[in-house]
Structure formats: C-alpha cells, structure tokens
C-alpha cells in the first residue's frame, strides 16, 4: 500500500473546547497501532479560534489521501476508529459524517485574501510562509521600488483602514513619507477590543508573518526604522506567535540592521496591552506604549506628524498590514477590482450570535448583508426570525431587516445608522431585546470610558442610568427624548472616538425599534421576554405532567407541587434565572 495520507484536525479554541485534542490523539493511536506512515497535524493549532472559520461544525477533520481531501464535521474521539478503519485502511469514506452543503455554501461566497493562509500553513514556521510566496513582496519593495512607488501602489489599491474608520491607507503613508524627522515609527494596532470581533486575533495567530511583512514594507515606504506591534492582553497566543515570527525574521535577515542585504534597518518590538478598550484609539495606544494611562489626547496634529513620543508615526490595523504584501505582489488593480468603487478589496468579518454558521468569514466589499447572513451564515438558528444585525461593536448600531439588501462598505453602513467598524457582526433574532442590547453596550462603554472628558464620563453614565430605569420597569415618559438629547450631545462633544460613537447603539435602536422602548416604558413589558424585572415565569397547568424536572433544577426552591400533579412557581421566591424554563422538556413553562 503506497498512499500519501495526511490528517488535519482542528485544535483551535473552538476545536479544543469541542474535543479536538482527544480526536487528535485517537488518530495518533490508530496510526501507530496499524504501523502506518501518515502526516498528522493540527491544522488549527495555527489558529486557536478562527480554524477555517467554521467553528459551528467543530471538530472538523480533513483526511487527505493521495491529494484527495475529505472533510468530516462534528467528529468525536469515539468516531475516529470507524473513519480510520473504513476510510484510511479500506478507502471508503464514511459518507454520513462528511460535511454537507452548508459547509460549501459557507465557503462559496467568500474570497480569501487576508485569510488565505490561515489554517493552511504552520504559523510558527517562517519557511512555511516563504513556501507560499511569503516575503517576496518585501524583497520586491526593497530591490526595485522607491518609497514613492510603494505609496502609489497602496494609494491606487483603494485600501482603507480596516480598524473601522476607513481612512485611506495610501494617504496616511504618503503623509508619513513626506514629513522629515530623525526618528519615525510604524505601529500595528492589534488591540482588538470590540466585543464580538476576533478577526485580528485570527490573523495574528494564523498568519503572523503577513502582518510583519506588511510592516516592513510600510517601514521602507515611510523611511521608518522602529516599529511596535501593540497586542491586547487577552491574546497571549498572538503574542507568542508574533514573537516567534519576529525572532525568525531577525535570524533570516528580514528584520534588524541591513535587512534583505541593504543598508536599511528596521527594529520591531511587541508591546502587550493591559486591558483597556480605549487603547484601541490611536493616541491612547501611543500613550500606553509610553507607559502612561491610555488616555486619548486631542488630535491637534495627525499621528503621521506627531505620534509616539511626539515623533511621526504611521499606525495601521492588523488586517490592513496583512493586505499589503498581497497588494504589492498582485498589483493595485487586482485589489481595487475586488471591492466597490469607494473601497477596494475584501473585509474579514466575525459572524456570530443567533446564526447557524458562526465563524470567521472574508468577503469582497459590496456583498449584501443578506448574502452574509443567509447564504454564508445559513440563516437564523432554530427556525426563529431575524430581528437585527449588530455591526461595529459598541461604536456601531443595529440594522433591521428592511436594510438586509444594503451592500457592505464604509459609507452604506453609515447611512443606515451603523458603522463597518473592525468587523464584528452579531445576529439578533426575535428573542433578543433591543433595549437590553443597547444597555449592554452602554454598560461596556461606560465602564471603558477613560474619564478624561466630561461628555463621555458623565454622559454615558446618565444614559446607562436611564436605560437601567427603563429595563427595570421604572421608565418614565420623556426618557426616550432625554436619551436622544444626551446621545446627540455626547456624540458632538466627546474627545475621542469612544465617546463620539458611544450613543450609536442607543440611537440606532431608537431609530428602528422605538416601539420596544415604548412597551418597556408604557406597558412595563419586554416584548422579547428578556428583561428580568419585566417578565414572570409560570407553569401551564394543562401541559405540566408533574415530572418534577423544574423543581429539581430550581436553585431557589421556588417551584411547588407534588409529583405527577401540575407544579406552580412561587413568584415571591423566583429569581427569574430561567433554569426551570430550560429544564422543562414539555414546554410547560412560559415567560411573559
């Protein structure tokens, strides 16, 4: 038997939490006891979260025999023996476990540029990156391109900042190039703080060399010799992978003095954040590298003029840098043609919430929201109906169903009251309460406000208090108007992006879901039955058969009743945790 066998097991955070390690060792055991020669690797050790993006189907296993790939889904350790026996030994794939149409639908509408290496190459090995064409772009930039030429290519590619604001990257680099200074810095912003977003993490963990290569090219374009990658404290694996990549680059002569044999030097360091959302804001991030509290400073100058330690600084997001090598190699036209007239290229989104296919996706700009949610995402989980799409994290807004045909780019999302942001997309269904969602984001921004400027520090607190009042059933007439007034003032007068965008979740839900606010205030009802103070749990006596599951599950001993006769929930004792609701198999417990 002369077969070339390779087995790839997803062992990322998604994979491991679903048992990826156990599956892997089951394969190892089978292989060694059969005395077979096989290549086995953890595809997504690369990639603790993103895997091939399709976390909903974990554990995913690829079996590749003589180049023919079969992908299995939902694999558990006890399923390995059968795959091994039937497929690997006898050559008959186990058809009922193979990924179905959903897997291909998930991938078909995607265009992978930034994610093309993620989950495919070993991120801890520079040679794996070089083997797929890595560092060719940087070498080309150093061997045959002037800084002006590099800037021109980036400018005409129409690449815009992927951190969320969408500032044209080429123009930023041009400013960096033109300004004269003895010291200039290049900074990569890896402080991905938006809840519901994990694109940058996946890129840093899955393809760290692409980020570094983009930074090297930026250094050459702007004449900078010092760089920092600012990584969030919550991403230890990204730090590890990037550090390995930097060390390998130094050994290979791609970083340090005399890179690529030229007399150009570029020194790159990692700076680990310490957990503050506001540090994703450029000026706050630079203060943090300087060792100070990460508080934003007024933008009297652009960072390209006066940034880190008051020196000219070009700061871009992880995904932005990861695009650069591809643009240099394939040309500006190629990239520009992937997107819309206003914004070139692709964008990575993390799709999560109440959608069937959760995971990491990359699509050309201009694709519609409907394509993303219903084709790639496979629609709403559990036959519920779509209510809204939350984009842009705490700075963004909620987009209702009537705008599902909006084409995704920076301007069109802004038009419907949200933002592109860094790329988090959380799908909300009919069981999500929009007032509660708005309160959730306000809690977040209020806690993360650095406290430097008054509108943000006090304004977000007041808005949160009003929302707490509304969701606890104490809302008053006039609260909605007060929220709007406060929101507009905070937006107009805050110092940095955090404050300016903090009211967005409230203002956008007020725009599209005002009736939900009104039911909370006037009827003291939460239409989605989420807000604890406005709902009661009760038992439908005609359905309850007295099995006692709810009684056993209740942590507060609030359920009364004898076995085999209908139970009752004591509203005085009930803490509304919903445990009984989950425990009842007969749908005899309702919340209204």
């Amino acid at each position, binding site marked *: 038997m002369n077969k070339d066998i390779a087995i790839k097991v997803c062992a990322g955070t998604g994979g491991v939490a679903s048992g990826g390690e156990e599956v892997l060792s089951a394969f190892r055991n089978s292989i060694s006891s059969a005395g077979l020669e096989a290549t086995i690797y953890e595809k997504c050790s690369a990639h603790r979260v993103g895997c091939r993006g399709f976390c909903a189907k974990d554990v995913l296993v690829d079996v590749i025999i003589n180049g023919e790939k079969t992908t299995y889904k939902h694999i558990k350790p006890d399923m390995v023996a059968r795959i091994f026996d039937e497929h690997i030994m006898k050559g008959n794939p186990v058809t009922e476990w193979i990924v179905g149409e959903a897997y291909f639908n998930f991938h078909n509408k995607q265009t992978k540029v930034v994610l093309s290496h993620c989950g495919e190459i070993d991120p801890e090995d520079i040679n794996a990156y070089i083997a797929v064409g890595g560092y060719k772009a940087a070498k080309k930039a150093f061997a045959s391109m002037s800084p002006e030429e590099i800037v021109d290519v980036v400018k005409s590619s129409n690449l815009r900042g992927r951190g969320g604001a969408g500032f044209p990257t080429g123009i930023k680099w041009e400013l960096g190039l033109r300004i004269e200074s003895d010291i200039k810095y290049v900074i990569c912003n890896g402080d991905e703080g938006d809840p519901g977003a994990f694109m940058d993490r996946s890129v840093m963990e899955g393809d760290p060399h692409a980020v570094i290569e983009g930074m090297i090219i930026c250094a050459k374009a702007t004449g900078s010799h010092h760089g920092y990658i600012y990584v969030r404290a919550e991403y230890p694996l990204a730090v590890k992978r990037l550090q390995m990549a930097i060390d390998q680059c130094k050994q290979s002569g791609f970083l340090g003095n005399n890179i690529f044999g030229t007399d150009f030097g570029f020194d790159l360091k990692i700076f680990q954040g310490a957990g503050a959302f506001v540090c994703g804001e450029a000026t706050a991030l630079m203060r943090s590298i300087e060792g100070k509290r990460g508080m934003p400073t007024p933008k009297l100058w652009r960072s390209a003029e006066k940034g880190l330690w008051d020196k000219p600084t070009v700061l871009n997001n992880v995904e932005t840098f990861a695009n650069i090598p591809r643009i240099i190699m394939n040309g500006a036209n190629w990239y520009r043609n992937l997107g819309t007239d206003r914004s070139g290229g692709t964008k990575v989104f993390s799709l999560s919430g109440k959608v069937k296919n959760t995971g990491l996706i990359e699509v050309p700009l201009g694709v519609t929201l409907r394509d993303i949610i219903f084709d790639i995402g496979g629609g709403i989980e559990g036959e519920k109906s779509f209510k809204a799409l939350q984009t842009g994290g705490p700075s963004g807004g909620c987009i209702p169903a009537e705008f599902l045909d909006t084409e995704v780019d920076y301007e069109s999302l802004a038009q419907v009251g949200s933002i592109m942001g860094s790329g988090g997309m959380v799908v909300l269904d009919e069981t999500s309460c929009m007032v509660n969602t708005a309160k959730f984001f306000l809690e977040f921004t209020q806690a993360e406000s650095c406290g430097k400027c008054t509108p943000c520090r006090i304004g977000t607190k007041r808005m949160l208090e009003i929302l707490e009042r509304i969701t606890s059933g104490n809302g008053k007439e006039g609260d909605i108007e007060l929220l709007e007034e406060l929101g507009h003032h905070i937006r107009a007068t805050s110092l940095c992006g955090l404050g300016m965008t903090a009211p967005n979740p409230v203002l956008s839900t007020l725009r599209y879901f005002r009736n939900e606010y009104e039911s909370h205030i006037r009827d003291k009802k939460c239409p989605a039955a989420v807000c604890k103070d406005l709902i009661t749990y009760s038992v439908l006596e005609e359905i309850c058969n007295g099995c006692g599951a709810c009684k056993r599950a209740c942590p507060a001993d609030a359920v009364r009743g004898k076995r085999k006769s209908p139970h009752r929930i004591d509203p005085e004792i009930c803490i509304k*945790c919903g445990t009984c609701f989950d425990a009842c198999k007969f749908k005899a417990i309702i919340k209204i």
Partner: protein
Amino acid sequence: MEKILEKILNDYQINKVNIISILQDIENNFGYIPEEAVFWFSKKLDIPASRFFGTATFYSQFHLKPRGKNIITVCRGTACHVKGSERLIDRLFMELDIPPDEETSPDLKFTVEKVNCIGACGIAPVTILNKEVHGKMTLDKLIKEVKKIKSNE
C-alpha cells in the same frame, strides 16, 4: 517578596521598560498587585506611588486584591451576551457565595471574572475554567463543572 521585586527591578533597569511592564511582572509573580510592592518600587525608582496606582486601576488586567485559587472567567462579549452569559454570571455568584460588587469568594477559593471578549464568538457563550476554554456553555454544564472543581478542593 523582596527577592522577586529585586529581580523585576533589575530587568527594568536593563531593558528600560515602563511602569506597565513592571506592574505586569508584579501581577504575574503574585497574582495581584500587593500594596507593599508598589511602595517598594515607588521608593526605589523615585516615582510617586500614585502613578503606579493610577496606571494599575486604569487597566483591567491589574488587581489590587488577592484573587481566588480557582478562576472562572465568563466572557460577556456581544455574542456571549445574546446567548445568555448574564444568566451564567448570576448563577455563579449565587452558587459560589460571592458578595455583590466583589469578584472573589470570602474563602479565596473562587474568583468569577467577567471579561469583555475573548474572541471565541463562534462557540458562544464561552467560559474559561482555570484556563480551560469551554464553548457553548449551558447553566447545567456549568454547575456540573463547578461542582467538579469544588469536589477536588
């Protein structure tokens, strides 16, 4: 303690790192930032203690109180929130007798920590039990896991 602090100071002087790095080292070594450590550094480096405290309280990674032996982290990112992380948190506080406005149980056995987003939204809601990531968590599963940890105590 003094020995560890000396070592951190030594690293600081060689690598010229900043206050944040010092605090990170202290936190890594002791599990929190002891007040004595701050005053020790403040004296050695002639930097006001207020700057250390100002920085330490600004960033969520630093803790000024000792933390529990077992650390349960519940992600409350957007995806986890819409999939019910709030219920998990409420139940944990009740189950582990953690006073409101605190995060550690009085016997220092458990700390329940809320984190903004750990970026594993695809398998929400996510909890981390002593560094082990568990996806698609339910109340039932969580209570079983907590009981497991308790019985190993």
